[in-house]
Structures are given as structure tokens and as C-alpha cells.
């Protein structure tokens, strides 16, 4: 298979060029205190549309962009894009190598790459997903409190890799069962648990795999929460402040404009 070590650099270069102009258009100027910003400035969307298609890197960028598309026709367009991408020599390798070379701080990109590999259904993609799923937590020192404190930087990627293996299994991909065995046995507890949840949800959690979880003292008697139990779980009362507490003095809106005009 063709190696594409230049892919990562190329991908970043393409994206940088595609986006720099839009960050530069932010203008300083006088603001009218209190009024909403006028939208007269033409929208400058970030774009990866005008990409050179001469190498795999732009195709990776285009695929990842297409995976975000919403709305009528987007699903069919993605299917077509995926089909074409998969037929590109070195396509899977370009994804996995881009993943390997991306800095660990590029969490959104790395997650999306794993999600893209999950759309393949080959023994090689199964192996890559198992590698990611078993890569273990990357615990980062946290300086910020609160929401800044994402201590496990790779959980998103590991979770997505593990869950994607269930799709491989359902599609009958060779070696996907082996990859799942590996994740159940070697992945961190949370990733193994999430794989168990997904296998259960797909009706694919075998006795052997339940036992693999139990041998690690991970709960394996999964049950979908439904009915009254689900209602209880979802019970929410957003107005539960104790009587007598000072109230929000801000204007309380009573309606929201419907979106029909914008859709």
C-alpha cells in the first residue's frame, strides 16, 4: 500500500489557507452600545470546498468536512464521498497516519478521524480502531478548574473507536471479533464498558464477551432504561429554587420566534 507521510502536513496547510482569510476579516471599529450587530457584512464561512484534489490530503479534508453536512441530500452525498474516498489508493493509511501525527491537543480532529475510519469496514480499519481503543487514557495536568478540567483527553477517540468496532462486527468484517476481544480485555475500564453497552444494544453481546467484562469486574448485565424508569431518569424541574430565594431580576421572556422563515 502506498504510504502518504506528507498527508498530515498537506492537510494542515490546506486548512490553514482555507481559513486564514476568514479570521483576518474581523474588523475593529466603533460599536453602537446595546444594539445587535448588523449582518451587512457578507458571511465568510470557513471553507474547504476549493481544494486541490491532486493528493489524498485534500480528500481527507473534504471527507471530514462532508461528514459534518446536514440536511436533505447530505447523507447520500456522504455515502458517495465515502465510496470514492475508499477507492483512493492509500485512503485508510492517510487517515491513520494523519491521526498518528496530529498533536494530542487536536482532539476534535483526532476524534473525527477515528469516526471516519469507523466508516471503513476492513480488517485493517478494525485493527486501527482496536489500537486506538486500547491506547489508554491520556491524563493531562489540569490548570483550569471546572469545565476546563478535561483530564482524559483521548476518551472521546477511544470511545468512538470501540463503538465503531460493533459496526464492523455487524458488517461481518474479518478479524472484527478478534479486535473486540482485544478491547474488552485490554482497554481501560470505561472504554471496555462502553463497548459492552454497544454490543448489548446491537444484540451482539455473547456470553464469552460478558464473561470477559466480568473477569475485569465490569458490570455486564446491561439493560436498556425505558418506560417509567426512563421518565424518572429524565425528570427535570428547572424551577426548583427554594421559595423565598432572591429571584433573577432580568427580564423574563415568554416567547421565542419560530424558525420557519429561516429554514
Amino acid at each position, binding site marked *: 500500500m502506498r504510504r502518504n507521510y506528507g498527508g498530515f502536513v498537506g492537510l494542515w496547510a490546506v*486548512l490553514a489557507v482555507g*481559513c*486564514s482569510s*476568514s*479570521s483576518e*476579516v*474581523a*474588523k*475593529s*471599529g466603533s*460599536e453602537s*452600545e446595546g*444594539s*445587535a*450587530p448588523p*449582518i451587512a*457584512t*457578507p*458571511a*465568510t*464561512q*470557513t*471553507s474547504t470546498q476549493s481544494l486541490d484534489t491532486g493528493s489524498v490530503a485534500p480528500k481527507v479534508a473534504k471527507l471530514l468536512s462532508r461528514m459534518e453536512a*446536514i*440536511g436533505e441530500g447530505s*447523507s447520500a452525498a456522504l455515502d458517495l464521498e465515502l465510496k470514492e474516498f475508499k477507492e483512493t489508493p492509500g485512503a485508510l493509511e492517510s487517515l491513520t497516519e494523519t491521526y498518528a501525527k496530529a498533536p494530542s491537543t487536536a*482532539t*476534535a480532529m483526532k*476524534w*473525527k478521524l477515528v469516526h471516519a475510519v469507523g466508516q471503513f469496514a476492513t480488517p485493517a480499519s478494525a485493527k486501527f480502531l482496536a489500537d486506538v481503543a486500547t491506547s489508554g487514557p491520556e491524563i493531562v495536568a489540569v490548570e*483550569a*478548574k*471546572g*469545565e476546563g*478540567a478535561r*483530564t482524559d483527553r483521548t*476518551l*472521546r477517540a477511544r*470511545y*468512538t473507536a470501540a463503538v465503531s468496532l460493533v459496526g464492523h462486527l455487524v458488517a461481518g468484517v474479518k478479524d472484527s471479533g478478534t479486535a473486540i476481544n482485544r478491547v474488552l480485555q485490554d482497554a481501560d475500564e*470505561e472504554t471496555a*464498558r462502553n463497548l459492552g*453497552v454497544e454490543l448489548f*444494544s446491537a444484540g451482539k453481546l455473547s456470553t464469552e464477551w460478558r464473561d470477559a467484562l466480568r473477569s475485569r469486574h465490569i*458490570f455486564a448485565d446491561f*439493560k436498556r*432504561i425505558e418506560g417509567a424508569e426512563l421518565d424518572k431518569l*429524565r*425528570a427535570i424541574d*428547572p*424551577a426548583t*429554587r*427554594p421559595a423565598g430565594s432572591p429571584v*433573577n431580576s*432580568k427580564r423574563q421572556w*415568554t416567547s421565542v420566534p*419560530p*424558525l*420557519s422563515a*429561516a429554514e
Partner: protein
Amino acid sequence: MKGIETMNSKIFASLAVSAVVLLGSARSHALCSRIANPYQFDSFYGALWGCKQELVNDMWYRFAFEAADWPGTYGYNDPCNDSTPLKRTFNAMQLLGYAMTASPTCSTSSSNVGMWAYCWAGNSIDEVYPGCEANEPRAHTSYGPFVDAYTKLFFSFFYDEDVIQRAGTLFHEARHAQGWCDHTDSCADGPDSCDPNWGSGCVGAGSSSGLGANGYTVLYMNWFATTARSNWINPTIRASAVAEGNYYLSHRFGTDPCFRLNAAGFPVTTC
């Protein structure tokens, strides 16, 4: 607290504390921009609501934005540019409002939070403004008597979170603001980020009972993944929402809630 380094209501009315809060809320306007990460769904959600002036106006007044808080690279003069913090905030607010319905309400009677999340968040958050300081939470909310109530959004909110994560963060912060709902320190993610447990997740004097801010995030992701309108969700975005919900479930509760979301977004018992 998603953030909430609050000054919460543990300290009812200390003038000294109020002074600190006021200092803490002083607004600086360092350059705030980055080459926008194109993998965070902004261009597609941006196109979905079209950056229409009437919707910009509604968000602007509902969440009490102020022009002086969003100068230059923050986006006041370029509010339809997906690279700016302002537009990235708008995109999240639109998702909060319209992902599950074209006609959101202000009544909170529906169990589906997507029906009322936007109005309720707007009524709960006193004002919203940006910051770009490094090593800050993604957002934090100040609330309580004798303090300047606000929700401040930081660099990581704008550029590290995708649109669905940002929408969840706004809903989460609204819970802090409305419910005086503080966090504890005991969970995997540590200081000021934890709900004690699922059913009773708020702490702090004068706080609400019931679900805490982390629970609100999880529920938003659950409802979004399972009930978002077909033209407001796709498989990749659903996967992001589920991953976000599961991150909170595994890292943000003192006592494990004993369920996780499957890939379709439905809860499954795990202990």
C-alpha cells in the same frame, strides 16, 4: 461548575467577596481569534439558520450581549463569520433553540428539554460575554445576591468545543445561573467540576434540588441524540453528542450514575 468558579451563594452577601467578584469580572479585550477548527460543525449550522438579522437580534437581547464586550476579533463587526467567538456562540444558541423543534416555547412543562432550553437559558443567564484568558474554564457563571451575575465564555468554549458541546455548555451554565447550583471537588475531573450524584446534583446555599448542571448536560445530549429533527442532526453530530454525554457520566459525578448512552443516545444501565 462548568465553570463555576462561583462565588456562589455559599457566601451570601459578603461585601468583600462582592468586591472580588467585581474585580474578577473586569473585562479585557485581548485579541481573540484562532484559525478556526473546521471540524466543529459551525459552517453547516451557520448555514442552517442563515445568520438572519431577526435571529441575531433575538439572541442579542435575550442573552443581554453588549457591543462593547465583543469588539474586533470577537466579532461584533463581523457577526456572520464562523471564525469569530460571537458567531460561534450564535451557532450554539441556535442549536439550543431549534434542533428539536422549529417552534420552541418558554414553558418548561415538556420533559424534552429541547423544547424550552433556549428560552429558559436566556431567562436564566443574566448576561453573556467573552474572555480569552489562557487556562480558564470553558465557561463560568457568577450568581447570587450582591454579586454581578454573568456568564463568561472562554477561548476553549469558542475553539475547542464543537457546536453541540457549546450548546450543552450554555444549558449547563444556565443551570448554575438559575439554580444557584454549585459543584463539588470529588470526581475524576476534580476541583469544581463534579455533581455529587445524579438525582441530587446541586450544592451550595440556596441551591436548587434535583439534577445538577452536569446532569443537565447529559440530558441535553440524550434528548438531542434521540429527538433532534432530521435536518439538524447527522450521524457524526449524534456521535459527538453521545460521546459528550458519556464523558460527563464517567468523569463528572461523585457517584457513578450507573448508566451510559449507547450510540443511538439511549441510556443503558451499567452498574
